């Protein structure tokens, strides 16, 4: 999909333009959901379950209602419509329905004059529980049949075997997205029994559907608005405060605001599925993969959320960007009383990449082969069938090119700076120089683009030419990644003018843009803006019989024949499109089918310094070569690569929600460590441009790739430094010290 004429325009594609929301953000003037207020506004608060599983014996809201300044105290009995919500399967009660199924499950909500009163009132509610035995062991859950989905993938001949066999068992912990902005929302009732909602989200239309159902309102009575978001990474794909603020606003007739504090945020959104994976890789003597056998268990926790789709990704990405003709994969995602899991950057492909890349290293060692050579030999390329689904790879997939480009990046010097701060342990100053061992490791990762398995994946955009400039209307959510700039750049390039503004429309003004997830918005909303802009350009040129559109109007043979004012003489001119990617299919009973819309590949190399005696690690450098299709905004790409690597670094060496018998024991930034500036590795990036078969100008989404293979690259480097067989992430000091 390419534009026929690509006029030269400032701020078009391929340039690193400044983001339009940058200036308000650096000045403190950008309005995030948690900053919003309204006249007469009340504050909401939530009472939660103190048990992972318990029967609700009695609830008495009287003491809370009696507090001065309290305007409403609501329980499940007060939900006006459908009592359950959920994105894929509606299985989660809006408020506890008689049994709490996870620690921190909302039980009752309160609206009061101020935040403090609301919190006190929530605590004043009397709740009696009968504690029940929680199901927290995913393997037990599989045995009990307590699963959201099981998948079976079979391809080729199960009976073949290879000369060289490696087996491994790998575990990944629960990672939290920990976006800096908290869950927050404001509901403002209108005069007609409806309301406007301003809530942190990644997909306002899917929120809207669930809120309308639970509130028993007509769709046009509720308008969900895009709002300033402080990062998301998957945490905002599911409902948080939405229905609660709506209920409180409807009952009190006043605006109601709710903001989670950090500890509440840790229980108030879904997390990355913890995983267990068993892999058996078989190769011939030359190192060609012959068969991969894998079993995968993801724990989905207490409610379904997006677990079914996450499992599909896990199962289909058990082999990675490699060819293999014989596949036996069994996968399950469990229903337990652990905190609910759902979307997080990488969406199922992170857990398996750790497994298959550890396996590829083991296989290289068993074959006495260079690990990158083994990967090149098996590299998946366009025209090959994907190992698991059998789908023929269309578009671009530069697996070998990313490996080559990565390898060509020079390694950092062994010992540039002897500052003790730059040793493992950092500011702890515990490591002496003589104890430091350096290691280097590699990993390559594969990810699908946009929604899969026959999901009707579309996004709408409306592009309007006015005398004052071009407006791009969309309901896509900007979470910080820079979609706003990419939309401007695409419209500028096609319409020949720098004056492009992105207008965030609410759910009543435009159709869905789909979720800001699955690395999809550059391609999907970008694709819609591309298509609408092309249609608008064609329409304007045809109307005025011109051959070129520039900032000042329509040109024919180099001469201006209609100014922008003349183009808009009868009012603004617009095109509204609904854009879809090439259709995908569901799979057959063996998991075979064209289930994915496209693929993206990346490679990472990590350099670490380790103090093996103390078990301390410093991630010195993580380099990457990334398949981008076409680079629309190089600076924004670098930002995604560096940010994604940082999140992968966190998962490799520190980030872990510790959950004991269903209870999160470290729900604070004091105890759940995220990487700081001192933990940040240096990063060198290379981008590989080979245009894809769909998407604006051949661009691919790259939001998730950097988080997928950075983690196993770092673990491989630690293994290279220590010789330890590290099979769990995060790698903690005890894993390095122990035998």
């Amino acid at each position, binding site marked *: 999909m390419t534009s026929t004429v690509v006029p030269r325009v400032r701020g078009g594609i391929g340039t690193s333009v400044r983001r339009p929301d940058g200036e308000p*953000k650096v*000045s403190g003037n950008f309005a995030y959901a948690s900053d919003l207020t309204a006249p007469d506004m009340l504050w909401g608060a939530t009472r939660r379950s103190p048990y992972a599983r318990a029967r609700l014996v009695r609830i008495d809201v009287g003491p809370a209602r009696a507090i001065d300044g309290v305007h409403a105290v609501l329980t499940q009995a007060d939900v006006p419509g459908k009592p359950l919500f959920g994105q894929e399967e509606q299985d989660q009660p809006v408020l506890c329905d008689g049994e709490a199924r996870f620690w921190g499950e909302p039980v009752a909500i309160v609206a009061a004059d101020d935040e403090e009163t609301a919190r006190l009132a929530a605590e004043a509610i009397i709740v009696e529980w009968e504690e029940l035995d929680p199901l927290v062991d995913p393997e037990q859950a599989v045995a009990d049949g307590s699963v959201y989905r099981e998948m079976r993938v079979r391809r080729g001949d199960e009976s073949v075997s290879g000369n060289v066999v490696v087996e491994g068992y790998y575990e990944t912990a629960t990672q939290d997205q920990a976006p*800096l902005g908290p869950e927050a929302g404001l509901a403002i009732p209108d005069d007609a029994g409806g309301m406007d909602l301003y809530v942190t989200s990644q997909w306002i239309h899917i929120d809207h559907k669930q809120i309308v159902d639970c509130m028993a309102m007509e769709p046009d009575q509720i308008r969900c608005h895009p709002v300033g978001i402080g*990062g998301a990474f998957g945490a905002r794909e599911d409902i948080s405060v939405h229905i609660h603020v709506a209920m409180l606003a409807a009952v009190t007739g006043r605006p109601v605001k709710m903001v989670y504090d*950090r500890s509440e945020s840790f229980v108030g959104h879904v997390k990355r599925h913890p995983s267990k994976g068993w892999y058996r890789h078989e190769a011939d003597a030359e190192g060609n993969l012959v068969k991969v056998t894998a079993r995968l268990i993801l724990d989905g926790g207490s409610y379904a959320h997006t677990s079914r789709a996450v499992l599909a990704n896990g199962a289909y990405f058990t082999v990675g960007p490699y060819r293999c003709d014989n596949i036996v994969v069994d996968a399950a995602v469990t229903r337990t009383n652990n905190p609910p899991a759902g979307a997080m950057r990488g969406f199922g492909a992170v857990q398996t990449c750790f497994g298959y890349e550890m396996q590829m290293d083991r296989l290289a060692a068993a074959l006495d082969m260079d690990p990158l050579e083994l990967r090149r030999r098996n590299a998946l390329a366009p025209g090959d069938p994907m190992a698991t689904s059998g789908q023929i790879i269309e578009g671009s997939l530069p697996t070998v090119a990313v490996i080559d480009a990565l390898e060509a990046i020079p390694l950092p010097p062994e010992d540039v700076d002897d500052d003790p701060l730059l040793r493992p342990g950092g500011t702890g100053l515990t490591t002496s120089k003589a104890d430091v061992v350096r290691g280097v490791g590699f990993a390559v990762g594969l990810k699908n683009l946009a929604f899969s398995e026959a999901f009707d994946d579309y996004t709408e955009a409306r592009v309007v030419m006015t005398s004052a400039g071009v407006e791009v209307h969309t309901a896509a959510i900007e979470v910080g990644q820079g979609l706003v700039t990419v939309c401007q750049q695409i419209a500028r390039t096609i319409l020949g003018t720098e004056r492009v503004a992105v207008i965030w429309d609410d759910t009543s003004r435009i159709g869905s843009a789909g979720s800001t997830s699955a690395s999809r918005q550059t391609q999907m909303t970008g694709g819609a803006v591309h298509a609408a802009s092309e249609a608008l350009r064609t329409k304007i040129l045809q109307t005025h019989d011109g051959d070129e559109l520039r900032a000042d109007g329509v040109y024919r043979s180099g001469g201006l024949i209609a100014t922008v004012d003349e183009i808009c003489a009868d009012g603004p001119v617009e095109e509204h499109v609904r854009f879809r990617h090439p259709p995908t299919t569901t799979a057959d009973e063996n998991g075979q089918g064209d289930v994915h819309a496209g693929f993206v590949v990346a490679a990472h190399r990590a350099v670490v310094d380790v103090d093996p005696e103390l078990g301390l690690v410093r991630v010195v450098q993580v380099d990457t070569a990334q398949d981008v299709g076409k680079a629309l905004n190089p600076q924004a790409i670098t930002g995604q690569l560096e*940010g994604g690597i940082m999140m992968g670094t966190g998962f490799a060496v520190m980030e872990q929600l510790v959950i004991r018998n269903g209870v999160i024991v470290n729900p604070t930034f*004091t105890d759940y460590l995220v990487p700081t*500036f001192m933990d940040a590795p240096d990063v060198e990036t290379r981008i590989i441009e080979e245009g894809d078969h769909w998407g604006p100008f051949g661009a691919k989404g790259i939001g998730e790739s950097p988080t997928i293979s950075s983690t196993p690259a770092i673990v491989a480097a630690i293994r290279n430094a220590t010789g330890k067989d590290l099979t769990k992430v995060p790698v903690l000091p005890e894993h390095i010290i122990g035998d």
Partner: protein
Amino acid sequence: MIVRITVNGDDRPFDVSGPDSLLSVLRRDLGLPGTKDACEQGECGSCTVELDGALVCSCLVMAVDADGCEVTTVEGLGDEDGLHPVQEAMLETGAVQCGFCTPGFVVAGAHLLDRNPHPTPLEVKEALAGNVCRCTGYGAITRAFELLAEPHPGDAQTGEES
């Protein structure tokens, strides 16, 4: 009690009764939501302000203890003529994604440059290690301070050396 503080050069008295933090008073009572609240535990630096010239997490300062103090928030940096150099540099290098951490980095970064106009990359890392950014991986923030740390013609230091 009535607490008298000066915020960004203006007298801003307010009435406080409970155990409110300086952060919540700034955001809720004084209409200055630029200072962000992301943990209320002194762990993330989103709420960083200058208090009588010292860098503090405003979530850890009791509002009553700020009585008689001068506070500078992100809204007080830059002037009518334009952005503060830290703000400008962060825009230039793409150091702003979601931007939730940005006010904290702007205030802490301006404070650093006041005291050390040419910080080394390691000095920048150390000085800003109390500010968490979940989006950028800190790379673009590093590059912003590299821009700022370059000696400029006319700098006192450059003059002395030449």
